[in-house]
Structure formats: structure tokens, C-alpha cells
């Protein structure tokens, strides 16, 4: 892909860097998908879409954070 | 230690190879069997095709193909006797079933629709895709990653989810059941694949070629047309075939947005019916004819297949 040489964003808080945040939002998406398709609880199913939406929107935002 | 040196891991033993080959061949034969069966069925008579137990060897007949291309009406023997004798072999065949040919069936216009829509959308998608891919490959486009993801995500959309508003949009614009509408729609779906695939191909052409040409006085556009395009021609051809196969195979949009004038083969084939249900030899004949071009293209595409199914990411 595009080879951009970026200086390490050292001043950006470590916890809010792209890697860990992306992992969290991806987990959220995964969790939402499991909630959507699990056969155990209608309640979980009801909240699945909110979870997926939060995960997806979060991912879109977080993926623009510096590394 | 000599045993280790004798057989390198990269080169498995002869026995392992033979066993592997046999297993793979077995799988391939099982996987091909349904296709062979359809091919065989297309050359069976209607009675043989639905015999119980299924007949592997039966008298061969082209009745399926004749039925596919014609519509027929059943007549009384008295009426048939009053007709002049049949002129052609297919009339004779139909007459032997106590039927007369009423006219051609709709299969030829449907095939033509498939071809027109397939080639039209492929041409547009490849043209748009090539220039966009070149721009993404060579220039610093702001937000390039986001744009590329946006382009890819449009292909990931569930067709039925997009079909609702497109149905309404086409209804308002008068594009329902028109070839133009289907061409535009398939172009939009294919352009994402075309951009991603062609970006991969163009990335592989060294920039030095164009730079040398531009030093020689070519403008950027001339360099694109005279240096990059000829280099990318294999990639463009492979991409075109992928787009063509997609448009050829597409069903969800076709069944929801077309009903007659612009209907393509996939929604048409399930509705080839004879007297009392589906006319299986005719369906099999249509399926065979429909698959033949794809089989040919698959063989041609063999080396680029992997790129095509991974949006150009895996290059082997």
C-alpha cells in the first residue's frame, strides 16, 4: 500500500494508539455478531445491533488514530 | 543424518505424492460428477431424465436442446395427420411427440441480454477501474486508504439490502427492466473489483518506465496511454474476465429488477418449464450452454484466479 514514513506519534497517549483501539472495536463487532446469531437469549439479540453499530463506528474513528 | 539430507521437506517422498494425487483426483471426480450429470441429462429424453432409478446410460437425444429453443403445442393425432410432412429434423422430432412447434422460445433474447449486459458493464467497469487504479497507484491521493475501502465496501453490501432503494430509484427513473439500468448497476458493482485488482497489477509495473518516457518528452497522460496501458494489458484482460463472469452469474439484482426485456439467463433458467413441471433436459441444456463460456474462461484465468478472489491482495 502507500508507503508513508511517519514519525512515531510519541505524544499520543499510549492507550489510544491505533493498534489496541482497533483490537477493542474489532472485538466489539465480533461480540455483536455472536449476539446477533446466538440461539440462547432474545435479550442479547435485541442489543446485538447497537453493539455492532458501536463497534463499527468506533473502528472507523479509531482507525484514523496515529500508530 | 543422511536420511535428512536425502529427502528435503520441500520435496515429499514419491509415495506421499502418489497418495496425495489419488486423494485429490478422487475429490475432483466427485466434485465434477454433478456437472457431468447435468451435461448427460441435457442429452437425455424427458422420460429418461426422470426415470427411477436414474439412468447413467440412456439413448441420446437432442430433444432437450430443441425444447430449449422452441415453444410447442400438443395436438391431436388427427390434426397432426392433416399437416404437411415435417421439413426439418427438429420438426420431425417434435412431431414424433405429438406436438408442433409454435415458435422460438425466449432463450435467445435472454442469452443476448446476458451478453449485452455482461460486455457493456464489463467495458465500463474496466475503463473506469483502469484510470482510477492508475491514480491510486501512482499519485498521492488524500485519504486514499479510506477511498479504497469505501470502493471495496460497496461490493460487500448484501445485494438484497441495496435492491430495495435501487428498485425504487429505477422505478422513478424508468430504468426498471432496461438493459441500460442493469449495465449501470453491474458497472457499479464491478468497478470496485476492477479498481482493486488493477491497482495490484499496475503497482507491479515499475514507475521507471513512465519516468523514462516522461524524460523523453511524453506528458503524464501520454505515458499512461503509451507505456502503462500496454504493460498492464494482461491484468486488464484478467480483470475484464472477472467482471464478465460476475455480470454473467449475477442473480439477485436480475430477478428483482428485470422481468422481461432485460432479463438475463440466471433468473430465466429456473423457469424453463415443460408440461407438468420443469423440463429437465431443457433446463440441463440451458445450464450446459450457460456454463460453457465460464468453463472456458476459468481455464484461461487459471493463473490469475487467486488475485481475483482476494481483490488483488494475494499474488502467488
Amino acid at each position, binding site marked *: *500500500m502507500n508507503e508513508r514514513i511517519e514519525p512515531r506519534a510519541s505524544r499520543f497517549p499510549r492507550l489510544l494508539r491505533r493498534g489496541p483501539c482497533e483490537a477493542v472495536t474489532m472485538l466489539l463487532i465480533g461480540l455483536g455478531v455472536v449476539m446477533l446469531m446466538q440461539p440462547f437469549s432474545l435479550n442479547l439479540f435485541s442489543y446485538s445491533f447497537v453493539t455492532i453499530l458501536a463497534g463499527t463506528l468506533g473502528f472507523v474513528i479509531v482507525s484514523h488514530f496515529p500508530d | 543424518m543422511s536420511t535428512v539430507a536425502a529427502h528435503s*521437506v520441500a520435496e515429499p517422498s514419491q509415495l506421499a505424492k502418489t497418495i496425495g494425487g489419488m486423494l485429490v483426483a478422487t475429490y475432483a471426480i466427485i*466434485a465434477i460428477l454433478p456437472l457431468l450429470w447435468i451435461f448427460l441429462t441435457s442429452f437425455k429424453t424427458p422420460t429418461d431424465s426422470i426415470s427411477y432409478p436414474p439412468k447413467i446410460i440412456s439413448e441420446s437425444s437432442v430433444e432437450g436442446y430443441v425444447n430449449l429453443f422452441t415453444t410447442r403445442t400438443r395436438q391431436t393425432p388427427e390434426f397432426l395427420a392433416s399437416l404437411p410432412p415435417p421439413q426439418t429434423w427438429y420438426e420431425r422430432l417434435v412431431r414424433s411427440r405429438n406436438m408442433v412447434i409454435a415458435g422460438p422460445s425466449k432463450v435467445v433474447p435472454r442469452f443476448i441480454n446476458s451478453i449485452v449486459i455482461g460486455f457493456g458493464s464489463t467495458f465500463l467497469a474496466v475503463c473506469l477501474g483502469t484510470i*482510477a487504479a492508475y491514480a491510486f497507484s501512482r499519485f498521492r491521493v488524500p485519504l486514499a486508504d479510506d477511498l479504497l475501502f469505501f470502493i471495496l465496501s460497496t461490493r*460487500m453490501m*448484501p445485494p438484497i439490502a441495496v435492491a*430495495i432503494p435501487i428498485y425504487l430509484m429505477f422505478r422513478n427513473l424508468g430504468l426498471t427492466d432496461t438493459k441500460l439500468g442493469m449495465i449501470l448497476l453491474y458497472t457499479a458493482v464491478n468497478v470496485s473489483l476492477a479498481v482493486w485488482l488493477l491497482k495490484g497489477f499496475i503497482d507491479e509495473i515499475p514507475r521507471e518506465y513512465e519516468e523514462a518516457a516522461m524524460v523523453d518528452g511524453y506528458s503524464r497522460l501520454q505515458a499512461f496511454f503509451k507505456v502503462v496501458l500496454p504493460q498492464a494489458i494482461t491484468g486488464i484482460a484478467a480483470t475484464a474476465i472477472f467482471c464478465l*463472469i460476475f455480470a454473467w452469474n449475477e*442473480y439477485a439484482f436480475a430477478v428483482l429488477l428485470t422481468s422481461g426485456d432485460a432479463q438475463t439467463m440466471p433468473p430465466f433458467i429456473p423457469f424453463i418449464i415443460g408440461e407438468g413441471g420443469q423440463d429437465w433436459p431443457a433446463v440441463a441444456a440451458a445450464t450446459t450452454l450457460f456454463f460453457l463460456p465460464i468453463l472456458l474462461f476459468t481455464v484461461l484465468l487459471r493463473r490469475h484466479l487467486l488475485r481475483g478472489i482476494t481483490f488483488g491482495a494475494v499474488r502467488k
Partner: protein
Amino acid sequence: MSTLAERADARAPRRLAFRLSTMSDRAIAWLFITPSVLLLLAINIFPLLWTIQLSFTNYRANRPNAPLRYVGLDNYRDILSDPDVWHAMQATAHFVLWSIGLEMLIGFGLALLINRRFRAHSFWTTMILLPMMLSPAVVGNFWTFLLQPQIGLFNSVVAFFTGADPSSFQMIGDVALAPWAIVMVDVWMWTPYVMLICLAGLRSIPDYIYEAAEVDRASRWRQFWSITLPMVMPFLMLAILFRAIENFKMFDMVNLLTSGGPGSTTEVASITLKREAFEKWRTGYSSALAIILFVTVFGAANIYVRVLDRVKQR
């Protein structure tokens, strides 16, 4: 000597050519990208926004003149508390999980075998690849023929090997078997896809790693678990995610093979959506369902592209 007008005429095309040739790279980039983006905006994004708007209304496409009423989040609330939709999601889950599980197993196995490069392996590989290039709709249609209880090839073959009566079971008409019929046809069709990607993964592993392991006297089994599998993992993820997305939204093959039946046993998400949108004509309600499916796929597609990037770096 020529007149002024003639001279101007002669200069005009040259000026145009001049302008094109000195166009800045930035201008060319935008000129080249804009048509594709505009097309996608018109045919994908505009409809998507429209769907979002419709999902908050009670609109029915078969009654365009009925008064349009905004119902807020009611459609979403209805869908997300509807046991029928929930069951459709479970049917989808059954289909997705089993088809992908089997495809991974068979596909990876085949890839390991083909990687031994036996004689004529490229011929057999091409043969195996054929089903995945075919039209899912036409495939679904002709499998209904193969799966007919008496006249179909499948039942006869099963009967031949198990001794059961070929008319004693029907793959499509039986509530218990129909979900497996769609899994089976999907596995038949898409195992080659998984195999091809796994094969690429296996071939991307450099030989020297195995040679080093051989020097360390690692067993074959050990080599598989600590070299082959981790190295192929990104490729497996790629195949799993793509197949999961595709099967989650699977419509054409299932629509023609079982069209959701018998009853609603094989009614996967897309079939529910089609029934709501184009049979019951509850456009507003089905738009909300479409958005739910879309957001799910979009979320998964984000992850897919991350994996794609990882594979590309190899």
C-alpha cells in the same frame, strides 16, 4: 500570410492539447478517480442513504401514494424483538458455521495434498476449481434436480453406499435435512475457494524454515503446528472472513435451492429480507432490516481489509 482568424483557429487545438499535457498530477488523479466515485455514490451510497431514511418510516413500495409517516426507531425495535427474525439469524448462523467449518477442513486438507506437487496436479486443481466459478443461482437450481428423492442422482448414490431406500429421505423437503442441503451445496461450491487461498498460504512459506526445523529434528507433527499453521493463519483468516461475509448475505443459491423452505427452516437473513421487502412489501420495516444486515457486513468488511493488509505484507 494568413488572417488573424485562421491563426486563432490553428492555435486552438494546440492550446487544448497543451492544457491536457501540462495538467498537474493532482488534477489527473482527481480526473481519474472522480468517475468511479461518482458512479458508486449514485448507485450505492445514495440508495444507502435512502434506505436509512426509509427505515424510519412506514413506507410501502406497493402503495406509493399512501401517507408517509415517520415512526422513529419502531422498525428497529420490532425487528430486534421479533422471534422470527431471531430464528432467521440462527438459521443463518447454522449455515455460516457449518459451511465454513467444513470448507476450511476439506479445503485446507486438499491444499496440503496439492502442495505435494504430484504429477498433473495443475490439471486436477483446475478441475476442482470449476464449481466456484459457476452462477450460484443456476447451481442452486440444478441441485434441486440432483436432490430429488427418487429421480435424483444424490439419493441414488447415497442409497448405493448405505443400502437405504433412495425415496426414504428428501434433502430439500425434510425439515431436518434441508438446512444440511444448503450447507452441502455451499461446501461443494466454495471448498475450492478456501483451497486456493490455503494453497497460496502454504506456498508463501519459505523452504528454509522447514529445513531449519529439520536440522533441529522437529517432528512432522510439530512442524505442522509450529510452522505451517501459524504461517498460513492470516490466509485462513482471509478465507474465513470472506466466506463468512458472503454466506451471511447468501441469497441466490438458497433462494433457488429451497427458497427458505420447508416452512422457514432454511430462511436465512437475505431470504427473510426478500420476503419482507418484495412479497409483503413492508418497505420501511425491511429497510431497517437491510440496514442491520448492512452494518454487520460493513463491520466485518473492516476487519477483512485489515487481514487483507496483513496478507499483502507477506
